[in-house]
């Protein structure tokens, strides 16, 4: 029986003076799971994930991360095993060199010098940034900055990794690189939660998704079930991925099985139908 990485019970939250942003969220994420949280702007996705490392605390209900109630732990304590990568890398870059930027979290957590050197080198190589290690991080391109932000969290190898809108402003190649990183981390047994409204990206790299609408969880399930369900997608105001749309035209002619939103599975289903 896998144990719970994150347990959310009847979570209600609002910012001061405002309306409820989260309205009774119940959610379990097991260790080693890979899940995308989808929903339109203002659905409460970012507010929800900020509860996972204690940046926000529930007003009603509770959030437990690896069994620890987030109300009873500091952000720094939770951050040791929950890595949160924010949407905009410009909100965190401050160091003079790429290397220093990546080492920031390790210094906060009190790692020794040698360990820092080894880990920074590994993280930079993994994110394809090693050759830039002495450069000023502000001189990097948009995609490189995004990878740098990722490296600065992955460097301390948190068990749970959360990414907020990692694909915004990224070109196709960068998205593929990112998808590869996500798959690799998940294969290593890490729990990954990715917030996005990029349906194509989700169709290609995810099997399990959560759809949020207006502070509530509308649905959770297999990607090929939810992303092809027009009623749910309309309610969530999300765009149908192209293969889901193509599949609706081919209904009756092709028997789609498995996760047919992935290109190779889609092609296989069509090949079978053609004999």
């Amino acid at each position, binding site marked *: 029986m896998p144990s719970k990485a994150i347990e959310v019970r009847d979570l209600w939250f609002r910012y001061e003076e405002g309306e409820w942003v989260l309205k009774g969220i119940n959610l379990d994420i097991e260790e080693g799971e890979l899940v995308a949280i989808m929903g339109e702007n203002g659905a409460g996705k970012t507010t929800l994930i900020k509860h996972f490392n204690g*940046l926000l605390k529930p007003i009603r209900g509770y959030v437990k991360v690896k069994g620890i109630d987030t109300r009873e732990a500091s952000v*720094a304590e939770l951050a040791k095993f929950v890595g949160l990568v924010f949407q905009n890398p*410009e909100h*965190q870059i401050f160091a003079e060199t790429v290397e220093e930027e990546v080492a920031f979290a390790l210094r*906060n957590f009190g790692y020794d010098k040698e360990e820092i050197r080894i880990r920074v080198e590994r993280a930079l190589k993994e994110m394809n940034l090693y050759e830039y290690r002495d450069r000023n991080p502000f001189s990097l391109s948009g995609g490189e900055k995004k990878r740098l932000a990722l490296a600065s969290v992955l460097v301390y190898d948190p068990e749970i990794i959360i990414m907020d809108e990692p694909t915004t402003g990224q070109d196709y190649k960068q998205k593929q690189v990112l998808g590869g990183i996500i798959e690799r981390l998940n294969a290593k047994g890490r729990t990954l939660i990715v917030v996005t409204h990029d349906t194509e990206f989700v169709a290609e790299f995810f099997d399990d998704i959560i759809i949020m609408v207006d502070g509530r969880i509308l649905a959770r399930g297999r990607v090929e079930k939810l992303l092809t369900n027009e009623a749910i997608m309309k309610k969530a105001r999300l765009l149908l991925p192209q293969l889901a749309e193509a599949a609706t035209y081919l209904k009756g002619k092709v028997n789609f099985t498995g996760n047919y939103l992935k290109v190779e599975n889609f092609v296989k289903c069509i090949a079978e139908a053609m004999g």
Partner: protein
Amino acid sequence: MNGIMRIMKGFEFRELDSPIHRLDPRVKLLYSCCMLVLSLLFVNIFVLMLILTTSIPLVLLGRVIKRWLNMIRGLIPLLVFIFVVNFLFSPNINGLEYATSMTLRFLALSSTFSVVFLTTSPESLAMALIKMKVPYEFTLAFTMAVRFLPTLARDLQRIIDAQRARGLELEKGGFLKRVKNFIPILVPLMVYEIRRSFQIAEAMESRGFGLPKKRTFLYEAKFSKTDYIVTLIILTLVAIMVLLKIIWNIS
């Protein structure tokens, strides 16, 4: 950090329909300028108290009392500081009285400007300035600065979140460590805002800012009956105070 947020929120306009919100922005500007001059003219504790109390009907009618009180709460450390410094370095014999009036003066000024900013949108303030023949470039710089505060507060919060997520603990360590803790917050903030200002400048130029044409406005400010009455009340108050100063020699 909470105190700063409270103070910032005490100067941030929010749309509401109240008699104070509906007042002509020029009347509110007149009010704040008059109170500014009066509180600089007097050191008398009772007069300064009176200036402070003029805010109360305004915050009540304007339904901004919660934010006004919150702003004052945020100011408390600063008020204590002003009081202590003035008490210790008072130029005259009665240090207690002097420190009290200096603190009251600061409080009265903050309160007056808070009321005006809480109930007047930056756009209508700009219009008031233009009507008073201030060149458009200056007015724009002023409104943009005012408009920028909430954006700045939001960016600051995001940066703090991002660094705390990487294990930064703002409230930990000795004095030197705490000062050092601000580097990862202030560097991204400054870089980000400078970049943003260039972007805004480019966006403005690409929409034709700076073309020497006469501007027209979507909304025009007009004085209503209430505006005249309030103006009269403000001017009467100022006149009485000035008379007090001249006739009874109240300082």
